[in-house]
């Protein structure tokens, strides 16, 4: 099959099945000599060289030596992967797009969780009033609210993370998008979730602290 790349004819010998990515830049595999003929002249035509260490030589050792001898940056596959992720997040719209989505999710989640929880408290104000009349301290009521908030929150965390992980692995397996889930990410989500729970509980606690138990007689 003959195709053209930038108006220059090229013979296609094979089509590679690669992983999908969020950016849709076509990739052509060819020799360096041919590649610089296909693309218009640019200041730099080579962005990286992929090297494989000889058997038995640790990768870190090789990258260190390359860096020492050439003064260029040399990375392991793992390091390079993260460098790329960092670059994409910083230099493309993806970082902002996804960041905004997450931030919105966080704010909306906080508002909805807080409101739902507050509604629950208001609906049960009489019961809380009755408990208060029977001698329950505000401190105990606060602990009850916090326990409820965290039980609901942590259950939701388990379900949410579980579903996300299953979904991620399934899409990754079916040749879809790449999927990574690090413990740092899980921890960050947990902290965010606990923040939401605490915030939600707090509005209810303030309401209960101000509650006049006299409402039980109404």
């Amino acid at each position, binding site marked *: 099959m003959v195709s053209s790349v930038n108006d220059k004819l090229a013979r296609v010998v094979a089509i590679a099945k690669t992983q999908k990515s969020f950016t849709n830049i076509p990739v052509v595999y060819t020799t360096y000599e041919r590649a610089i003929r296909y693309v218009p002249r640019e200041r730099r035509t080579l962005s990286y060289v992929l090297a494989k260490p000889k058997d038995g030589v640790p990768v870190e050792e090789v990258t260190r030596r390359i860096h020492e001898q050439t003064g260029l940056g040399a990375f392991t596959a793992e390091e390079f992967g993260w460098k790329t992720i960092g670059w994409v997040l910083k230099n493309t719209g993806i970082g902002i797009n996804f960041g905004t989505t997450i931030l919105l999710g966080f704010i909306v989640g906080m508002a909805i969780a807080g409101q739902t929880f507050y509604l629950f408290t208001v609906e049960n104000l009489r019961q809380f*009033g*009755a408990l208060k009349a029977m*001698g*329950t301290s*505000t401190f105990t009521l606060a602990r009850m609210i916090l326990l409820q908030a965290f039980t609901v929150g942590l259950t939701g965390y388990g379900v949410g993370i579980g579903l996300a992980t299953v979904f991620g692995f399934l899409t990754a397996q079916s040749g879809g998008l790449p999927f990574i889930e690090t413990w740092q990410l899980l921890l960050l989500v947990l902290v965010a979730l606990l923040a939401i729970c605490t915030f939600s509980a707090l509005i209810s606690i303030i309401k209960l602290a101000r509650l*006049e138990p*006299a409402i*039980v*007689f109404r």
Partner: protein
Amino acid sequence: MMDSQAQPAAVRARGIVKSFGTGDTKVTVLRGIDLDIYLGEMLLLVGESGGGKTTLLSAIAGILDIDDGNIDVLGVPLGELPAGKRTTFRGQTMGFIYQQFNLLPALTAAENVAVPLLIQKIGRPEALRRARAMLDRVGLSDRAEFLPKNLSVGQQQRVAIARALVNEPRLLICDEPTAALDGPNGQKIMELLREVGRSPDRCVVVVTHDSRIFHFGDRLARLTDGRIVSIEPIAREGTA
């Protein structure tokens, strides 16, 4: 004169003033209430609707701040207790019975009755044991594991009575305990309150405007225009 009135009052209220709102909308509900309630008696507090009976009960229970006056309960001046101490004191010395029962819907009858004990940090097995014993006394031993929604209103109020008494409170405060019940059920509840609730070392205050239950009380106090206008002993067959 009853013997109990020779001892100092368990509840001693003097010059209680309470108003709601400010400016044009200000209403003075209590205009200087003096009232003594004695151990061993059941005092009925009656008066027209909106007259301030509930307000007075709330003040005596220490769940409503008053504008002026003093209330001593068992010799303790409520106004001088900080809020936290007042809450604890209330939990230890008072029991409440409401028109609307106010049972916790998710808890069984026995668990509901155990709540005041659990608040006093009594262990769950012991609390439940005492709760069942109390349910037995109000005639509901076979309903201990029922949820409130599966009980009749009369039974629910009996659970509420058991809950109010499980703590052996010195002061039992009842606001319209029969208002949500029909005539016969109301009579039964008052009989039960008199039989189980009334005791030599407890005083019972019942707010009501149901004249059909007046005869259950020992004394009747009338609240009109924010003042107690009369307190009279109630003639009872066989006891007077």
